[in-house]
């Protein structure tokens, strides 16, 4: 589905954000992109969505190299935008339509899909916002906005679903729904998170970015969770003092709080 070859990206001031990443994700794979805050997860997702042009390296979506030139060609940009979608971490940045219905229908209208009304109601029902369809999305809570954005990207029924900290604003019930949905769907998914517990639920394979912006692990979630050295290197576990009965000691932990 996608292939990344030696992707490197620097900020304008020369600071490195991504350092020589190479990996491929096959059709239907469920992958978690794991790393501490600031390691480059969001930048990588934006590169995979064709929003940021990397400083170096190549990115292929279904064997087509994605470049600024590719994305200027409507015949290539249209299918790419429909089939590779990104759920942004901050739902406010995605919302701009007058009603929730229009927000979800925006994509299908852009791509001239059929049965728009039916599609919108189906996905609104899936994420549990049917009662909000006539409301302005800006008036909703952050969690509801996140569900609107989720419906707005899922309604396109894309082939590649890129998710940036998708559960950050969701309540536990919606998080549970999303985890189950990701497990059941045929879509290829790449979900970024710094929460190891969720990463294990959102993907069977994990890509781990270090704080030096390098890909330091590419394998099954199961093997990652057993690799304490990698978890420490990526700053995914932490050590603090605590008690077991009367015994107080320090060791590495994973906390699943958000």
């Amino acid at each position, binding site marked *: 589905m996608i292939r990344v070859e030696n992707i490197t990206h620097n900020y304008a001031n020369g600071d490195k954000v991504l350092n020589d990443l190479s990996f491929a994700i096959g059709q239907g794979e469920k992958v978690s992109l794991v790393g501490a805050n600031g390691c480059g997860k969001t930048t990588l997702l934006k590169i995979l969505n064709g929003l940021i042009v990397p400083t170096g390296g190549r990115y292929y979506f279904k064997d087509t190299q994605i470049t600024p030139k590719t994305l200027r060609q409507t015949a290539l940009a249209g299918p790419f935008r429909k089939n590779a*979608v990104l759920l942004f971490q901050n739902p406010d940045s995605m919302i701009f339509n007058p009603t929730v219905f229009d927000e979800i229908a925006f994509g299908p209208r852009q791509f001239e899909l059929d049965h728009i009304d039916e599609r919108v109601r189906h996905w609104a029902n899936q994420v549990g916002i049917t009662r909000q369809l006539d409301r302005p999305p800006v008036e909703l809570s952050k969690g509801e906005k996140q569900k609107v954005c989720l419906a707005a990207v899922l309604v396109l029924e894309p082939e590649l679903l890129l998710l940036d900290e998708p559960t950050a604003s969701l309540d536990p019930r919606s998080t549970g729904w999303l985890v189950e949905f990701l497990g059941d769907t045929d879509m290829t998914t790449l979900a970024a998170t710094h929460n190891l517990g969720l990463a294990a639920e959102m993907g069977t394979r994990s890509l781990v970015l270090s704080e030096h912006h390098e890909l330091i692990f590419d394998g099954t979630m199961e093997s990652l969770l057993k690799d304490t050295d990698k978890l420490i290197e990526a700053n995914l576990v932490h050590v603090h003092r605590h008690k077991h009965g009367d015994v107080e000691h320090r060791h590495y932990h994973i906390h699943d709080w958000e």
Partner: protein
Amino acid sequence: MMKDTSALVVYAAAVIAITLVHHTGLLAAALAVAVVIAGQRAARLARKAFFAIVVFNLVVTVSYVVVSLVRDELSLHFVLLMNLRVFLLTFLGFLVADRINLFKAVSFSKTLSYLLTVAASQIVTFRRLFDDFRMAFKSRTPNPARSKDLYRHGASAASFFLHKSFLESAEITDAMKSRGFFDD
């Protein structure tokens, strides 16, 4: 620190002087001095200053020329004076931002340091958010986006930023109050 503070004081004095001088020759000479001080960065700063003011100056200049022609009182000296002054002030602003560390320059005052920190953090946050808005829209639209959607997105983003800046100002004020900032 003293070097930065002194440079900031010189800059403030220069801004006042430039607004009081109405002689194009003097302003041109001041611009030449600024260019010499900028050295190798001069071309880049000039380009930046030009693009920062071009739309505003064009609108003002064209409006002035049209009105003056109707009234038959066009003064090319005034057109040159206005454009030169705005360009010089903008160039100087970019030169100062390029050359001095503003945080060091205002470090003599606790109040100014706080205000600068608050302003800088707001700028960084808003710039990052604005990039996200732009990218989210791009991500959801095939090329080219329709004008109606562009206007709607622009209006929505503007409203969001206005609302957010209002809320954040209130929050920052509360945070500063909580830390005793207004008790001096």
